[in-house]
């Protein structure tokens, strides 16, 4: 599924160079569940953005299936994100002015579906995360756990091959955390997704098939 070869990513920050990823080579098989752990500033989010076609490496190559992400243009990367990759964020990142149903539909807008199909798929996605009756609620009318469920529905509604989650339970209490992880695990098993979760939480990481640790830009297996 993913093939990273000698990936380096550096940033210029306040006149100094920050090496976020340092010669990372990594393979992730289709359908695997992977947890990425590490200290703050170790490069977890940068690695996730590289896998999510949001960043290009400074050097090295990142391949998703047949697509070489490091050389594709912005439009093609956007297309891959629209079709193949689902994102779940720590802060949920819902559009505050759109209700739950419409938030889920935003993920389908780039696919060119007609309104009826978009609505039907969004409703089904909300139902699959247990929020069938919350479609008309605005984000601020939902609890943190419910907002993250909407975000998961948004990530899965386009039937992606990969689901990338950046600290998906970081803003939730323990009970809700377990609910969300149960949901993600269930969907992963049910849909055969490749699930990659960045987390600080060892309880969350332990649920993954494979655990990676990243520190000072270097990735090691646990």
């Amino acid at each position: 599924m993913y093939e990273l070869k000698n990936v380096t990513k550096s940033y210029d920050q306040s006149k100094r160079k920050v090496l976020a990823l340092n010669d990372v080579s990594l393979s992730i098989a289709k359908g695997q569940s992977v947890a990425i752990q590490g200290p703050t500033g170790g490069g977890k989010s940068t690695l996730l953005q590289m896998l999510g076609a949001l960043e290009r490496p400074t050097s090295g190559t990142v391949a998703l299936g047949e697509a070489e992400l490091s050389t594709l243009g912005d439009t093609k990367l956007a297309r891959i994100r629209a079709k193949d990759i689902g994102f779940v964020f720590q802060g949920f990142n819902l559009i505050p002015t759109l209700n739950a149903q419409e938030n889920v539909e935003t993920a389908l807008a780039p696919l060119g579906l007609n309104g009826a199909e978009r609505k039907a798929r969004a409703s089904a996605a909300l139902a699959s995360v247990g929020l069938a009756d919350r479609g008309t609620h605005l984000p601020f009318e939902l609890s943190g756990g419910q907002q993250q469920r909407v975000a998961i529905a948004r990530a899965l509604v386009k039937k992606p091959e990969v689901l990338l989650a950046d600290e998906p339970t970081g803003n939730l209490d323990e009970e809700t955390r377990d609910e969300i992880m149960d949901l993600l695990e269930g969907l992963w098993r049910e849909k055969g997704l490749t699930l990659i979760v960045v987390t600080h939480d060892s309880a969350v990481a332990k649920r993954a098939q494979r655990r990676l640790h990243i520190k000072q830009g270097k990735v090691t297996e646990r």
Partner: protein
Amino acid sequence: MFGTYLWRELVHRRKQTIIVAIGLAIAIALVIVVNAVSAGVRDAQSTVLQSVYGVGTDVTVTQAPTAPADGAQGGPAFQFGSGDGAADGGSTTLSQSRLTAARGSTAFDASALDTVTSVDNVSAATATLSLESITFNGQIPDFQQGTQGAPTDGSAPPTGGADGAGGSSFDVDSFSVQGIDVTGAAVGPLTATSLSDGRTFTASDVGTDVVVVDASYATTAGLAVGDTLSIGDTEFTVIGIVASTGSDAATGSNTYIPLDVAQSLSGLDGQITGIYVQAASAADVAQIKSDLETALPDATVSTQADLASSVSGSLSTASGLVSSLGTWLSLIVLAAAFLLAILFTISGVSRRTREFGTLKAIGWSNGRIVRQVAGESIVQGLIGGAAGIAVGLLGVIIVNLIAPTLSGSASTVGALGGPGGGAFRGPGGATQTAAATTDVTLQAPVTISIILIAVGLAVLGGLLAGAIGGWRAARLRPAEALRSVA
């Protein structure tokens, strides 16, 4: 999705939407009012000019006056021989009438009319001869009879002074006379008049001593249809009274007579003082002016725009206010409104950095995000435009209800007398304005083009704000957008 998202954003950020819309509305309303008033002032100027130059005159051809040669007389002179006048009880009564080219106008060869009509895109042209009729009437003491007795009819002769120079009593009466083509020209001074009484000229009036009199002059001179009027010592029959159309002003001349008669009486055979030219279309005016200046190098060729600058009075003040203060105010408010819209859009994009980063992360292309931002700005602009049109139309209605009266006059100048020698002449150098002051009620018209301009400006404001905001949003790299708020 586009429409839903757009609508929700505008409603959610209604304060910003309202402020931007109000800014644009004020600017667009100002543009509409200034444009409408400007058009009204132009119409008023046109009315004033029409009262002098007639309807449909696009270009006038005249010749600049030249200074009289040394020893020549600049104005009409009255000279009396020893046998002139009628002696009556110690005084001699003298009367003489002169018909000369009006002061400020210069006679030139009538063949210029053929030159004008041969110019491309001239649809009609007619020649005129502007004259001034001056009549001297008076009594002077009969020094030969001196003190030989009092007049038999009992009237007292003027009393002379010790040096014999005083004791004269005379008056000078003058009015303007315009010789015009009476064969029904489509352009010319009478086209802006309506007949109050009698009849106007027909082709059969060529060579006849008939006169059409301006209504204002007819009132002051006590003239009516059928009366006679002495012009250049010739008795003319009044056949019609005309008044200016569209205003209560006097027409361009006090009296109108057939051109050939005017030429003959004034001794200016084959001469004219002006040509009124109608262009085939407004777009041809500049070309016609240029061609005429080439074909008639000694002539002064004036377009309506040139003539408009000769309009004076409160109309001129209004024109100046509209064209300077009004235009600048509109531009400044428009620029401020555009800036406001742009700044709010940029600020909105900055505030929504994470939102756009998220949308990019889930697959929205730059183009889709730019369209979304631009769409929101354009709709804001259109809301402002609609409000601006409503406010602007209200402003125009108020202007039209107030209907201020503006007065203006076009400076076509006639003259009485002039410097130089001669026995008797009119008050030296005194001039009078031939065209009377015209009072025009200002009516600000609203045209489709003004509305289209307003809508265009609203869309332009929205597009500008949207383009700049969209450009900012497109430049956001999704990873950075997400990182900046993580």
